[in-house]
């Protein structure tokens, strides 16, 4: 698997040695990480510095003093931060039923301590990949929105009819303009939407919406 660049792994665990060990392990796989000693600290960071458009994932200890991992998970889920930030729960002891329940509610996975081999790191990479994918989707969708917003009113009308599969002649008739003008609009739409053909445009719009 290709190493994902620009990715960040957030580690939230009250035990410093575990935090350090995990960071060290991730660094051995060239994965940058940031550690937090409590759920509150992580939440504060998130409020101050919202995650940039880069892949990330969260390693969350279930039991901590103060706000527990589960509570933080609920807060993040309610805020919608989890769409691009998969969560892997770390369970120190048999909270397995709880962990399974969280997976049902949308956590990426849970791992029991101690972790075996590189299984955890592999899961982290998978989570980061998912995050990157989600981010790409989000970015793509927002690109499409930008491109669509650049179209003029007339260009939009033309585009809708092109996507519907009408030939230029009929479009000209329908919009009561000359075929020549239709062709100019059409080439501008293709330029702005960064596509080369009508089929490509239709695909882009179908996936985007």
């Amino acid at each position, binding site marked *: 698997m290709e190493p994902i660049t620009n990715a960040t792994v957030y580690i939230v665990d009250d*035990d410093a*040695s*575990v935090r*350090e*060990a*995990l960071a*060290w*392990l*991730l*660094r*051995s*796989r060239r994965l940058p990480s940031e550690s937090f000693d409590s759920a509150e600290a992580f939440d504060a960071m998130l409020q101050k510095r919202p995650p940039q458009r880069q892949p990330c994932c969260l390693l969350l200890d279930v*039991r901590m*003093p103060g706000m*527990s991992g589960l509570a933080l998970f609920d807060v993040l889920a309610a805020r919608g931060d989890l769409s691009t930030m998969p969560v892997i729960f*770390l369970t*120190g*002891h*048999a*909270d397995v*039923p*709880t962990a399974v*329940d969280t997976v049902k509610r949308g956590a990426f996975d849970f791992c*029991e*301590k*101690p*972790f*075996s*081999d*590189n299984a955890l*790191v592999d899961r982290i990479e998978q989570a980061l990949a998912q995050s990157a994918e989600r981010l790409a989707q989000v970015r793509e969708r927002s690109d499409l929105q930008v491109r669509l917003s650049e179209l003029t009113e007339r260009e939009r009308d033309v585009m809708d009819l092109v996507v519907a599969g009408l030939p230029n002649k009929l479009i000209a008739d329908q919009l009561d303009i000359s075929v020549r003008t239709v062709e100019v609009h059409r080439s501008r739409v293709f330029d702005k939407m960064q596509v080369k053909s009508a089929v490509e445009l239709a695909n882009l719009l179908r996936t985007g919406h």
Partner: protein
Amino acid sequence: MTAVPVKRTLLQRWRGAWRRWSLWTALVLLVVSMLATMVWLAGRYEASQVQTRLERDTADAVSDIRTALTHNVQSLQALPSDNPSQLAWEVDASELLRNRRELVRIELRDANLRMRTHVQSPYRPVAWDMRLRDSGQSDLTIACANARRLGGPAYSSSYFQPHGDGLGSEMMELCVPLSASGRTIGYLVATYALQDILANLVGHNLTRSQEASFTEADGTRLAVLGAARRGSRMFSAQHLLDLPGGTLVLRMDSWHSAPSLFPNVLTALVTAMSIALVTVMVVLVRDNRRRLRAERDLADALAFRKAMEDSLVTGLRARDLEGRITYVNPAFCEMVGFSPQELLGLSMSAPYWPPERVEEYQQRQAIRFAGTMPPREGFESEFMRKDGTRFPVLIIEAPLINAQGQHTGWMSAFLDISEQRRVEELSRASQERLQATARLATVGEMASLLSHELNQPLAAISSYANGSINLLEHATPVTASAPESDALEDVRMAMRQIARQAERAGRVIKSVHDFVRRRDQAREAVHAQQLLDAILPLVSLQARKLGVRVNTSVEQGLAPALCDRTMVEQVLLNLARNAMQAMDDPSVRTRVLDIRVRRAASNPHNGWIEFAVTDVGTGIPPEVAERLFTPFFTTRPEGMGLGLSMCRTVIEQHGGFLGFAPNEPRGTVFTFTLPVNNGTTP
């Protein structure tokens, strides 16, 4: 020492007897004196009757005499005295004398009292001494002088006239002046014998027991008729007979037999008895009424006692000094299953004694009858019902003392304590169960803590080892020499071993943990009230010791919780004990432990029940609050510091939340939540 009480009792007895008998003596004396008074009064009344009758008779006699004398005066005046022929006068006078026996002699005298003629009564021959008679001092002369002065008949006083035969009698002269044309021409002198006056004028009215006599004023008898008996019962009456020129006293004596005692006593008796009868009747009626009232009261008291006896759950049995059963109450019969008829009168071996213990009980009974007092608080024993089942009883025995203070037997009360025993057994079992689970929970919590505490470093070890392996792979230089390469290979192998051993340690811990936590899956639907009921006996035991009042309240219509029952019981018990210990401080006056269960914030998918355990104790200082859930942290010298940590583990395993907050105005409230059993989860 002993003589004094004897003397005293003798004195008391005398006093008592006197008090008892004095009233009766007084009553008898009163009755006797009343009877005597009545008899005496009756006698007196009778005597006065006799006296009155006698007085009346005397008055009648005097009146008779006076009438007869007046009659005689008229007869004398009617004699033909003016006729010169004296013969006619003499004939008439003789005739008169014959008819009138009281008259003894009639003389006709001239104005100078010279005798002209006379006639003599044929019945009483008297030798008259004429010389004496005609003397100027004779009674005759005095009477005629009186007659001349009065101008009418006059009597002389009586005098004694000898008869010549040695006897004599009292006589009295009557002188009637004869007048013609206002001039006294002569006198008629008639002589009365007093004895004959009595005989002829009074005699026919005289009864046998009466005696009539003329007496002088000084009581000298002049003439007597009849002969009354002498004796004590003499009645006497006197009446004056006034005659012109003289006065006589008529006296009547009468003898009356002693008023007969017997009829009087009879009357008195009848009267007294009537009075007594009426009195007795009144007393009887009153007594009867009192008796009825007493009977009613007694019946009421008896009914009350009977109801009390019948309603008792305590069995009662009385035995006499020989050990025979003399009384059993219904509760006792019900207890042993025998009817009273089967039990009464039995002595040595009762049918409700278990056969194998008869000997022991008989010994006990023998000791009792030897006079040993049983323990006041009773003793426990075992009885057998009619169907053969055994049951434990508590027996309380006391001596039966009758009204005279004599010891007549033994009274025993029986309490069937099998139910009490069962409850004790149950409570002990439940306590043992809770203690066992408490131990198990502690072990579980230890395992949980150990696994957590060991897993953290193991995780670190594993991470470092795996990271090292990763680095070694990247760092393997192609140009490295063989020994270097071999060394690196050894290090890599060692790292892999480290990671493997860490993993193995983790597996061991997990297996221990899983073994202890095997019962995690035992989730069932339990009502909150059932959880409270399970721990309340133990909680109230401690609450009583610490003087804590325990309040519980469960919201109405609460759905059952889905939980591991025994573990949640441990949590509740731990929290309740902590709360009570928080109040075990002299500064806490009113100690109230409050356990509330209510519905917590829920959504359609997940329902939650909230338990709140509130105390009003000293509260939790901030530095303690920080470390409250830290394992092995405790504020108590004998504590292990696992209680709250375990509670949190248990609640989190249920998916719930355990937290605490200060209670207003003082104390702490611990709350935890449990999921509602909505039927979908197993």
